[in-house]
């Protein structure tokens, strides 16, 4: 039964509140996931600590080769930010595809990361980049790589006295193209059946840099390295892209829990059918080749 609603005005206070209520303080920012869970009766917190008044979590700025995004930045703010649009257009696209406008006005990048939902749109995009997360507790700051932070579906490496404060993304090289694409049952306000992010650099007609990440397939959004390795250093062709799609599917078959593959609710049957084509089509589009 909810008894306390706390609203710290700075980080210091937030950390103290968190420690004081250790184990019981539920952190919320946009509360878009939280309210859903609450109404479904899946959680029953005693105490809520609302981070939405922490101005220091709202910054976006460039620091050397990094773009630093405050954990409290909303999807709408992310979508509208020019710096993000210039350097990380896939992240802009992903932020713009989340839920409905009302959700995007509240939901934050921090919430999306810590929520660690398998289909989280930002996680799909972020997985394609080099991302470091900054976590803070009352005593110190801690850095952790995104891929080490996300442990499983709705499971991440955050201690219960810690707050995610910043997402640091390494800015890709000039001339790298990138794209985020989401497959869902309708054109807005819909969860991803599959989301895919691709980053591609081409030098001297050869693929010099490639990142391929997908979400909503395996329990965590992740890169598909076998496909990446195949593509790297090669000249882009139709056949190569088809093969990359096939390898991505192989990776899913290897890594998925065999029981999950038969679970109709998870929709693997359909996802595995469309996944190779989505990968190859994305690559074709990015290299402006015709299918």
């Amino acid at each position: 039964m909810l008894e306390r609603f706390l609203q710290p005005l700075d980080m210091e206070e937030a950390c103290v509140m968190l420690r004081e209520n250790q184990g019981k303080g539920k952190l919320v920012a946009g509360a878009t996931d939280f309210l859903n869970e609450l109404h479904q009766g899946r959680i029953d917190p005693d105490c809520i600590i609302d981070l939405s008044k922490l101005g220091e979590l709202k910054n976006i700025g460039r620091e050397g080769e990094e773009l630093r995004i405050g954990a409290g930045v909303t999807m709408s703010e992310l979508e509208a930010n020019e710096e993000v649009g210039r350097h990380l257009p896939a992240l802009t696209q992903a932020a713009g595809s989340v839920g409905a406008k009302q959700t995007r006005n509240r939901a934050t990048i921090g919430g999306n990361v810590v929520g660690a939902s398998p289909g989280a749109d930002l996680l799909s995009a972020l997985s394609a980049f080099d991302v470091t997360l900054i976590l803070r507790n009352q005593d110190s700051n801690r850095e952790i790589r995104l891929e080490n932070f996300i442990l499983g579906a709705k499971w991440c490496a955050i201690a219960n006295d810690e707050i995610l404060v910043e997402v640091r993304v390494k800015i890709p090289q000039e001339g790298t193209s990138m794209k985020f694409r989401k497959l869902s049952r309708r054109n807005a306000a819909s969860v991803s059946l599959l989301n895919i992010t691709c980053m591609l650099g081409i030098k001297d007609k050869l693929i010099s840099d490639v990142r391929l990440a997908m979400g909503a397939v395996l329990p965590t959004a992740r890169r598909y390295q076998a496909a990446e390795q195949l593509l790297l250093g090669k000249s882009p062709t139709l056949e190569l892209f088809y093969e990359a799609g096939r390898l991505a599917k192989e990776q899913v078959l290897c890594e998925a829990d065999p029981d999950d593959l038969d679970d109709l609710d998870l929709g693997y049957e359909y996802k595995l059918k469309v996944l190779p084509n989505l990968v190859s089509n994305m690559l074709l589009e990015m290299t402006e080749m015709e299918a």
Partner: protein
Amino acid sequence: MENKSYKRVDVLAKVRGKAKYTDDLRMEDMLHLKVIRSPHAHAKIKNIDVAKALEVPGVVGVYTARDLPFKQSGTNRPVLVWDTARYIGDGVALVAAESEQAATQGALQVEVEYQILSGIFSPERALEVGAESIHGESNVVSHWTIDRGDAQKAFALADVVLERDYSTQAIYHGHMETEVAIAEPRVDGLNIYCPSKLPTIARNAVAGILNLKQNQVRMIQPAIGGSFGAKGPDAIILSARVGLVALLTGRPCKGVYTREESIVEGTKRHPFKMHYKVGATKDGKLTAMDIRILADAGAYCNETIRVTARAVVEATGPYVVPNLKVDVKGVYTNQVNADAVRGFGSPQVDYASEQLMDELADELGMDALEIRRLNGFKEGSISATGQEMKAVGLDDCLDALDETLDWKNRKKQIKEDSGGLIRKGIGMAAMFRGESKGSGAVDTAGVNIQTQPDGSIIVYSGLAEVGQGGYTMLISVISQVLGVNPDRIHISSYDSNYCPDGGPTVASRGTVTSGNAAVLAAEQIKEKLIQVACEKLGVVKEKLVFADDKITDIEDENSSITFEEAVDGCYAKGENGYGYGWWSAPETTWNYETGDVSNCEPYFSYVYGANGAEVEVNLATGKVDVIKFVGVHDVGYALNPEEVKNQIAGGVNMGIGYALTEDLKMEEGAIQNVNYCHYLMPTSLDIHEVIPVIVEHAGPDGPLGAKGLGEPATSIVAPAILNAIADAIGCRVYDLPASLERVLEAVREGEESRALNMSIEKEKVFCETRIGQKSSERKGMQSC
């Protein structure tokens, strides 16, 4: 020239947030209601222990069916079940408390002991020998048949015979405002505030259930947040629940469902399983059909009898079928109760008949529009039930669709526009639909118009404004009959103490029934004013014209009196400016005895329509986008053209959901998607270009020739889209909705059959190339 459009009377209050919905109302000392529902699809209730619930702070009482004045009998859904729950969501008990939170906590503490019974989750199973009986007798709710001509012989003689199976899903209305009601006790009865589509029927039903006289229940209709066929039985049941608490406690009580409660308990569209067999000559003339349909009624009867009655009448689509067998059964299951959802049996059969016509056309190498022109109803055609069709507007609709889509050219051109992963296709569908209730039902409405001494007008109508624009329709009709500015007219919202019965807002009947009653009422006032005008102007009544807020001598435009002067003259004589109209629909016939309706006149009038869709299908994912939709509807006479266009567009939106994404998934009777996160209705980004087209083929019975549009607007959207998908990918989806998975499956099937054709084609090309080479050699040309 297009008719004048009228601004909606309710629009300003709604867009400014001033409209009062039921949930906006607060009363002193008001209790809050929560419902305990069966989690089992079929179970006997052994015991209900309320002790713990009563200990929850704030809980005032827990009530069961034993607290009602009578045990409810019959096969309609009860306010609370007596001893058997028949679906997941059946109401078992009520908790009333000081706050909604306390009521929710209390509901969690009510302990119900169930004895679980085996459930029936498909209509086929319900009909099996030895299947559990859901209501103590046969599981068949209704059974209608048609047997005309000699179908068996006609099939034997047909040049082509096709047989197909179709299925449709249960859908939810998607009304923005969930079910809600407040009951307020009076010394001598109850006031009930409830948004429903059938306020007078609800008043009467609640009075019966609570053992009150009808004049002891005052039903008041606040602003309503949508119906689409909902807020019928659910509104009655909730009104009776809060009414019961109000009577027992002497305090006002409010009940409002969450979205999840609304989806779990509330009525849904009947899922249909349909088998169609059609025979035709090689020229495309239909010779025979054999149609077998099972409709899943869910756990209770409610409107299943009339939904299936409509289905049997309209099963063939708007076509002449000389030899015909139709068999439609409504069947009980332990699934959610089916009732009215905008269309009432039409969208299901239209979905089947319209896909079948397209496949038949393909089979015969005919054009889809032409095969419909060839077989479609004309003036005097004989319908499936042997009725002679009058005021048939089908050809007008087909022509308008043809023109708007540029059908033949576009059908060719769209293939050229198509390429790569995105395939485009175009499809169409046609319809006819019985107007109003039909099948022998009493079908009436009253309207009371009171012109005030200053010439302003108040209208009291029993028509439920559910968002369809019914009030504005009344204003359009009255202002046209009396020749006055619509701003002069105020529509009083529904209150059963003052408003005559208008019947339910169902069956697209509001315009025809209440509109006609409004004409009759306005004519009475006109008569009174004519007498005044005749005396003042010294002319005979035939020479008077009512227009521009004046009554004018047709031969001398300077000889006139204003509407105010006429009204004033009326009151000065000791007369009044009131008119009362009561309209009763022409008689219709039905065979309730044997169920054989081969010779009936089930509806007094029919409406017609033709829809066309252009779609894009993504071959990699099965994703469909309806990029253009043309909705052509014969509305007889557009009383408010802007409203007509919007109603068509709204119907298209709803139909797109039915066609592509909306699907209540049930497992052993449990609905899996109980909120809008998982039940997917189209968003504005899923709706692309929608072109509404008005056809005015005046009907003999409607006010000023108008016909109903609410349900027709959505009835054939899905088959037009499914036909377009088939055109795009060369393979067909037979089960609704055309989900990503089903479309992708069809794409794969299409590819396989194309690959097969391609290998045949290659052979052909090889042969032709050789012949071609020879001819080019002959001409001495070089090939490169």
